[in-house]
C-alpha cells in the first residue's frame, strides 16, 4: 500500500487530496445546513470563481517560477475600470476588441513587473508590493474620482456573465463561469502540452539546472509576469461585466485570495510544482468555505478570513511535511533496494 502511494506523482496526490477535502467539506455542511446543496450555492460559487480562477491561474504561473505577484489585485482594479470607461464612452465597440484591450492593458502592467524582477533582479516580493501600490494610485489618477456604473455599460456586457449556457437540474452553467473554465483549461493544456511552457516548471524546479540546460530564465520569468498580467486583465473584464459598478477599490485583496487559492490548490511556494487545475480547485474550495460559513448558523460569517488564513498555513505546512516524508520514504526504499542488490550480487 505504501509502495502504491510512492508511485503517484506529488501533483496527482495533491489533486486527489483536494477533491477528497472538498467532498468532505460539502458533506459536512450538507449535514449542518438545511437545503445546502442547491442551485443557488452552485451559482454563487461559480460566478465568483469566474473572476478568481483567472487570477489564480496567472498567480500559479508566477509561483511556478519561484516568484510571487502581489500586484494582481491592483491590475484587476485598473483594467476593470479602464475597460468599463472605454465601453461606456464607445458603446458600439466590438466585444472582441474590448476583451483584447483588457488583456493587453493587463499584460502591459505585467511587463513592468517582469522587467523589474527578471532583468533588474529585484525580488518579486518587493517589486509587486510596490507596484500593487503604484498601479492602484495609477487607477486613482486615471479615474479622477469618478466611478463606472452599470447604467453606463451596454446590456450585452452586463448580461454576459449571467447568460445560462446549459443547466443540469437547478445547476446553471453560466457564460462567465464557462468562459473562465475555458481559459483555465486552455492554460492547463498549454502548460502540460506546449514544449516552451514546461520551462516555467524547469526554472522554478532547479534554476541552476535550467541555466545548464540552456534555458533563458530571465525571459521565462518575464513571460510569466506578462501572462499573469494578461490573466488579471481578463479578470478585470469579467469583474466589470459581473459587478458593473467599479470604484477605485475594485480588486482590493484579490492578490491574497489568488495566492491562497494557488497554495491551497497544491502549487508549491518553492516553485516547480503545481497545476492550474489544482489552483482552480483551490479557488473553488476557498469560495465554498466562504459561502458555506455565511450560511452556517453556528459561527458568524466574519470567520471567513480567519479560516482562510488558517487554511493557507495548514495547506502549506501539511504539504511541506508530506513532501519531506515522501522524499524520506523514497530514499529509504532506494537504500533498501541498493542493499538488496548488493546482497544479490555477493
Amino acid at each position, binding site marked *: 500500500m505504501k509502495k502504491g502511494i510512492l508511485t503517484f506523482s506529488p501533483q496527482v496526490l495533491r489533486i486527489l487530496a483536494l477533491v477528497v477535502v472538498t467532498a468532505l467539506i460539502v458533506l459536512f455542511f450538507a449535514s449542518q445546513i438545511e437545503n445546502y446543496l442547491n442551485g443557488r450555492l452552485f451559482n454563487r460559487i461559480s460566478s465568483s470563481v469566474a473572476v478568481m480562477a483567472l487570477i489564480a491561474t496567472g498567480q500559479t504561473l508566477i509561483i511556478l517560477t519561484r516568484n510571487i505577484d502581489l500586484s494582481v489585485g491592483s491590475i484587476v482594479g485598473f483594467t476593470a475600470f479602464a475597460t468599463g470607461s472605454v465601453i461606456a464612452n464607445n458603446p458600439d465597440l466590438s466585444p472582441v476588441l474590448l476583451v483584447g484591450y483588457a488583456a493587453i492593458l493587463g499584460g502591459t502592467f505585467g511587463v513592468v513587473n517582469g522587467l523589474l524582477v527578471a532583468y533588474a*533582479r*529585484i525580488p518579486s516580493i518587493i517589486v509587486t508590493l510596490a*507596484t*500593487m501600490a503604484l498601479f492602484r*494610485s495609477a487607477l486613482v489618477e486615471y479615474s479622477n474620482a469618478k466611478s463606472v456604473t452599470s447604467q453606463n455599460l451596454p446590456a450585452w456586457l452586463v448580461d454576459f456573465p449571467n447568460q445560462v449556457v446549459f443547466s443540469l437540474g437547478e445547476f446553471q452553467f453560466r457564460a462567465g463561469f464557462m468562459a473562465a473554465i475555458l481559459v483555465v483549461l486552455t492554460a492547463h493544456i498549454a502548460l502540460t502540452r506546449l514544449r516552451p511552457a514546461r520551462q516555467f516548471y524547469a526554472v522554478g524546479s532547479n534554476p541552476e539546472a535550467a541555466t545548464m540546460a540552456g534555458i533563458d530564465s530571465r525571459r521565462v520569468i518575464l513571460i510569466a509576469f506578462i501572462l499573469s498580467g494578461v490573466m488579471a486583465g481578463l479578470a478585470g473584464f469579467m469583474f466589470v461585466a459581473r459587478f458593473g459598478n467599479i470604484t477605485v477599490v475594485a480588486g482590493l485583496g484579490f492578490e491574497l485570495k489568488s495566492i491562497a487559492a494557488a497554495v491551497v490548490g497544491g502549487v508549491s511556494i518553492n516553485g516547480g510544482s503545481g497545476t492550474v487545475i489544482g489552483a482552480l480547485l483551490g479557488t473553488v474550495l476557498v469560495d465554498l468555505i466562504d459561502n458555506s460559513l455565511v450560511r452556517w448558523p453556528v459561527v458568524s460569517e*466574519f470567520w471567513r*478570513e*480567519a479560516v482562510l488564513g488558517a487554511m493557507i498555513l495548514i495547506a502549506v*505546512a501539511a504539504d511541506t511535511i508530506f513532501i519531506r516524508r515522501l522524499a524520506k520514504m523514497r530514499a529509504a526504499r532506494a537504500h533498501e533496494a541498493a542493499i538488496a542488490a548488493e546482497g544479490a550480487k555477493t
Partner: protein
Amino acid sequence: MKKRLLSWEGLLLAAFATIFAFNAISLPQFLTIPNQINMFQLSIEKVIVVLVMAFVIINAEIDLSVGSMMGLSACAFGWLFQQGVDPVVAIGLCLLIGVLGGAVNGLFVAWVGLPSLVVTLAALIGFRGLARVLVEDRGITDFPDWFDALGQQGLIGPMTFAMISFFTLLVVAWIILEKSAFGRHTYVIGSNRDVAEFAGINTKRHKLIIFVATGLVSAFAGLLYAARVGAVRGDVANGFELDIITIVLLGGASIFGGSGTLVSTGLAILIVLNLRNGMALHNVTGHIQTGVIGFLLIASVLVPRLDLLRRITKKSKGQE
C-alpha cells in the same frame, strides 16, 4: 560595506534635506510645531513597528502580518472593552495576543521551516479575519478618557505618550541592535544562518524571539492607534505593512538580510513622514501618496544596484 552604507546614509540625508527644504519653502504651515507634531502623530504607530521590522529584515525574514496584528489588537481591545473587561486587563490581554500571534509566526518559520513570506501572508489574512470576527462590521468607541488621552494629549509638552514610546523604543532598539549580543546575532544569522549555526548560535530561538517581539510591538502599536483615533473598526491599520517594509528597505536594509542600521532607518522614517506630510498639505490623495511610497520602494532597491552596475561596467571597460 561600510563605505556603501555611508554613501547611502549621505544620499538619504540629502533626500531628506531636499524634501524638508521644499516643504518649508512651499508650505508656510509646515514648520509650525503643531504640524510637526501632527506629522509624527499621524504615522506614529507605523514608525513604532518599523523599529522591530528592521530586526526582522536584517534577520533575512519578512513579516507581512504586522498591519493585521495591529488591527487585531485594536479590535480585541474594543471587543474586550465592550464585554466590560477592565481596560487595563484588556490592554494586557491584547499584548498577550501579540505575543501569541508572533509565536505562531515564529514557530512555523523557525521550527517547521516554512518561508516567512507564506507564513506571515497567512497570518496577514488570518489575524485580520480574527479582528473582523471580534468587531464584525461595527465600530467601537467611547473608550475611557484616560485611554484616549494616551493617544491624543501631550504628556511632556506637546509630546504624546505614543511619541514618547517611539523615542524610548528607538533608543532601546538601537542599543539592542548595535550594542548587544542579541543584535550582533541578528546580523550574523541574517547574513548566513549556517555560519551562525556552526558557531553555536541557537538560530531557531533567535528567530522565534524576533517574531514574538514583532507581534508584541505590533499589538502595542495597535492599541496606540485605538487610543489616538478613539475608535476601532475591522479595517484598522489595513495595508500598513507596505509603508513599514518600505521604510526599512529605504533605510538601506537588504531584503536578503545581514545589513541595515537604525540610524539610516531613522532617516528613512523622516523622509517618508515629511514626504507624506508635504503631499497631504498639497492636497495629494492617500492612494497617490501610497503610490509614491511604492515608487520609493523600488527606487531604494534599484538605485544601489545601478551604482553597482556602473562600477561593473567601468571595471570591464578598464580591462579591455
